[in-house]
């Protein structure tokens, strides 16, 4: 049919313009990157249904062309096939550039489900959508624990902060669709404000080997990517609905994608989750309900030569914090530690009362890229984030419903990146970043500001290069410089200002004296250099080794500088220090990977020496009207962390395999040898999985999670005199809880509901035997047991 129309069309054309078929089209084919000529390319002339080839110099000539449209389809070995069209009304000469960088093409290829790693020589682990879907009802931090060596530090069960090789918070850099997440991440009780359902794949990079994104990732980088844009006329989506017994929760997430072959795309995604009070095996964990909703909208155009994207995401979460964890003084803490059960146990409810958090996070991004002939690719990006965090404490009187913390953090970032890849086997990437951030602490809370108002300015430049030394070996290296300025306006109690000795060292900062308090204007500049170098060598087709070194440098965050007050659930006074300087980490790491037909193993080792590592340490005791409180202040000491992460799988039978994920991490201060706090204990997870692809891709997995008792911990215990009885007791806040051993189950099955739709039904049971346990890395372990059995049913409909 098409040919007939074409013939008809040509015939009409020929009839109308019969006299004008005298034009000549002279073409020259070159490589897009380096301008070299392309010989022996096939050129299909659509209007004439004829083929020809380019000569040795990449030239070709089409003669006797008629006036009108000329469409050429050009193909060349290892190049993207390109179709171009011209309107011919005179003799025409054109240079046509083809693209031969296969790797780049993957980014826009039609077919590939290939998700490429972000780095070449770093310890990078990829979590794909098949894995992530299991965590649809949970949080980002829960999903990341699939990677050996990644754990989490929790406040209850809904606030889950990822931890890579024992480091967390400001030491991890989280990129959400190429935007660095700015959501008060310094706080150990501030989980990333990201909906796990907006992610299609997540890269976890251990160490700072991804300098393009920042030089302060002492612990690691988490890169969250949305679904790749595919150049195909297609409309697809999925809906995940789940319910769980523990917390009587539900979650619903839906996404829809529309792509066009010409590169245009638009997609949207929304999630709604809610649960009531969770339950430990023996009691209800009162006030642990949570609610969250997330929306993501994304659209743009993506072609090989250029493209743009607009992206908006909104995440709103309200999280109840275990009621019994809110305490007034040390005596309350002693009572909690000595009691087997939390002090408040109410009936199950979906209501969320104080203490609670309510956070709204908006992210807006616009990006544009263009490739230039004989040059490379230029990318530009602007993003804006607005993070509004409320924390509600238990308050009395008129302030009952008033937030105790009300912070608005706004961040604007502009980035420009250039990749020079015109020459073969050469790839240089460099770029610059500018960022402005403003934090506003609402004074209407009636509570002294935890974090002051501040303006922060960042500027960074970096350069990265790659050298393929041979077909088996690749070397890369990078350098980065960052400048940070923080300009804060903070009120200090005069007594605190003097107690810290700031009146002698920072007299110039005082801009107003209000009698009992001082308004100060601390301004600090930090210059940070970071670097990375790595090598990856393929031993053979099945195995490789890689080794890398990274230098990262992190300036103190607002909490480390400015903290100044009572931390309720910890019953301690936490003090920042204006004298802190940047911490500098030197990390060396090596990995070995083997992927055979039956046996896979990945072994990753690291040694991270951090000079001037910042952490909280007990300093003394201060008396207040509520009794004595231990004071913890930020100090800097040289520290070291090292460890080994193993993941292995072995196929016993065709349909049965066993996998093991084990991580061992050690951290201590170098001079004193004192262990660092909050280092994950030795843990190992074994899973046995049965699969039957013939029977609706059925799978059934039973896993055992064994977390040892952490024997390496700092002793921060202290004595206190109880006012009610007059006796002196030891407050044991240090001893980690005993080891625990949990069994989990996961089974799923996929039905083809029609030609283009599938239904995946998954059943999972966590903590099958309803074991009572407390986790060392859960900050509410003093107050209550962790979660009991949880049965989840999840339906995923793909269309």
């Amino acid at each position: 049919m098409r040919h007939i129309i074409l013939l008809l069309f040509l015939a009409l054309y020929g009839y109308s313009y019969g006299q004008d078929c005298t034009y000549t089209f002279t073409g020259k084919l070159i490589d897009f990157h380096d301008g070299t000529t392309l010989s022996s390319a096939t050129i299909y002339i659509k209007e004439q249904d004829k083929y020809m080839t380019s000569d040795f110099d990449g030239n070709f000539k089409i003669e006797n062309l008629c006036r009108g449209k000329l469409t050429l389809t050009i193909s060349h070995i290892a190049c993207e096939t390109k179709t171009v069209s011209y309107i011919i009304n005179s003799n025409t000469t054109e240079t046509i550039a083809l693209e031969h960088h296969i790797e780049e093409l993957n980014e826009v290829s039609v077919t590939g489900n290939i998700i490429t790693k972000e780095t070449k020589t770093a310890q990078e682990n990829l979590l794909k959508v098949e894995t992530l879907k299991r965590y649809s009802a949970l949080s980002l931090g829960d999903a990341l624990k699939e990677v050996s060596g990644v754990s989490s530090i929790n406040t209850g069960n809904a606030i889950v902060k990822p931890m890579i090789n024992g480091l967390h918070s400001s030491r991890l850099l989280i990129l959400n669709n190429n935007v660095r997440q700015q959501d008060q991440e310094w706080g150990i009780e501030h989980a990333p404000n990201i909906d796990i359902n907006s992610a299609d794949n997540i890269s976890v990079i251990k160490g700072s080997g991804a300098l393009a994104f920042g030089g302060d990732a002492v612990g690691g980088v988490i890169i969250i990517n949305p679904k790749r844009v595919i150049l195909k006329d297609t409309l697809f989506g999925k809906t995940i609905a789940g319910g769980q017994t523990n917390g009587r929760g539900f979650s619903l997430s839906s996404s829809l994608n529309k792509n066009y072959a010409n590169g245009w795309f638009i997609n949207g995604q929304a999630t709604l989750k809610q649960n009531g009070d969770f339950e430990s095996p023996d009691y209800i964990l009162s006030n642990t309900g949570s609610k969250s909703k997330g929306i993501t909208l994304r659209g743009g155009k993506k072609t090989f030569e250029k493209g743009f994207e607009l992206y908006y995401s909104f995440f709103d979460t309200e999280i109840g914090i275990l009621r019994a964890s809110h305490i007034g003084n040390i005596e309350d803490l002693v009572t909690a530690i000595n009691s087997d059960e939390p002090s408040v146990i109410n009936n199950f409810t979906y209501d969320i009362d104080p203490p609670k958090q309510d956070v709204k996070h908006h992210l807006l991004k616009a990006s544009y890229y263009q490739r230039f002939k004989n040059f490379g690719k230029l990318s530009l990006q602007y993003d804006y984030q607005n993070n509004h965090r409320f924390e509600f404490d238990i308050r009395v009187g008129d302030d009952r419903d008033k937030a105790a913390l009300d912070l608005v953090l706004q961040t604007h970032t502009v980035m420009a990146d250039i990749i020079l890849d015109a020459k073969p086997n050469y790839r240089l990437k460099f770029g610059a970043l500018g960022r402005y951030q403003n934090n506003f602490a609402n004074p209407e809370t009636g509570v002294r500001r935890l974090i002051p108002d501040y303006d922060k300015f960042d500027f960074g430049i970096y350069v990265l290069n790659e050298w393929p030394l041979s077909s088996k070996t690749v070397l890369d290296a990078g350098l980065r410089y960052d400048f940070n300025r923080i300009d804060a306006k903070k009120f200090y109690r005069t007594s605190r200002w003097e107690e810290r000795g700031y009146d002698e060292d920072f007299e110039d900062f005082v801009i107003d004296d209000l009698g009992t308090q001082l308004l100060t204007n601390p301004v600090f500049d930090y210059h940070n250099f970071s670097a990375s170098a790595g090598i990856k060598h393929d031993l053979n087709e099945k195995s490789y080794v890689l080794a890398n070194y990274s230098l990262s440098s992190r300036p103190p965050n607002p909490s480390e500088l400015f903290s100044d007050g009572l931390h309720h659930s910890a019953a301690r006074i936490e003090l920042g220090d204006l004298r802190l300087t940047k911490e500098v980490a030197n990390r060396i790491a090596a990995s070995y990977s083997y992927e055979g037909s039956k046996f896979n193993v990945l072994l990753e080792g690291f040694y991270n020496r951090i000079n001037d590592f910042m952490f909280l340490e007990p300093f003394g005791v201060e008396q207040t009207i509520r009794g004595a409180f231990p004071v913890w202040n930020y100090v800097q000491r040289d520290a070291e962390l090292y460890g080994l992460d193993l993941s292995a799988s072995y196929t016993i039978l065709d349909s049965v395999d066993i996998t093991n994920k084990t991580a061992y991490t050690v951290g201590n201060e170098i001079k004193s040898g004192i262990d660092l706090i909050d280092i994950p204990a030795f843990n190992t997870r074994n899973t046995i999985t049965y699969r039957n692809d013939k029977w609706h891709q059925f799978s059934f997995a039973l896993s055992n999670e064994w977390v040892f008792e952490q024997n390496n911990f700092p002793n921060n215990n202290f004595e206190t005199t109880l006012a009610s009885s007059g006796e002196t007791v030891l407050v044991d806040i240090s001893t980690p809880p005993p080891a625990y051993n949990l069994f989990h189950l996961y089974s799923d099955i996929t039905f083809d509901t029609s030609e283009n739709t599938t239904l995946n039904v998954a059943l999972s049971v966590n903590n099958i035997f309803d074991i009572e346990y407390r986790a060392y890395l859960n900050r509410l372990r003093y107050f209550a047991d962790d979660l009991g059995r949880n049965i989840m049913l999840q339906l995923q409909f793909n269309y």
Partner: protein
Amino acid sequence: MKTIKYLFITLLTSTLFVACSSDDDNPPPVNEEEVITTMTITLTPQGAGDTVTLQTRDLDGDGPNAPLVTVTGNLSLNTTYNGSVILLDESDPDDVENITEEVQEESDEHQFFYTLSNNLGTVSYSDLDENNNPVGLLFSLQTVASTTATEGLFTATLRHELNKDAEGVSNGNIANAGGETDISESFTVSIQ
């Protein structure tokens, strides 16, 4: 693609605009609420004798300075004292607030607990909240008739959001009270 370029220019310009628009106004100080800096307990003997005043005063709140604890007067043996409490927020010397009224208004969620060590005396509540549970803003202290001790610790604790119905709580036993501590202070008192 032109539109995209314009979009970018607009966005970049708006960034600069926002970046420059941060003014230099100083933030206002926070008017701290729910702060108790001072508790004054007055023990007035029924009949003749000296009034005993116990005070704890911590003007910098959670700041580094310890509360100033003062006791004036000595307890007398075999005496009944009428006790009363006044709570103040003196963190701003120009705007002293009386917090006693706030506790009075929410008396069903607050309770004081008092003990006197060395068996020097017993405390009983003299006031009730709307649920007929004690509050402790008013109480009476009965000292013993004779003792070998010369001094003891008078401990006062204020809790809120406690369980007033728990066993012993209405008799002044703090053990099962739960809740959160607002004030906890021990005063060394002499008896003669």
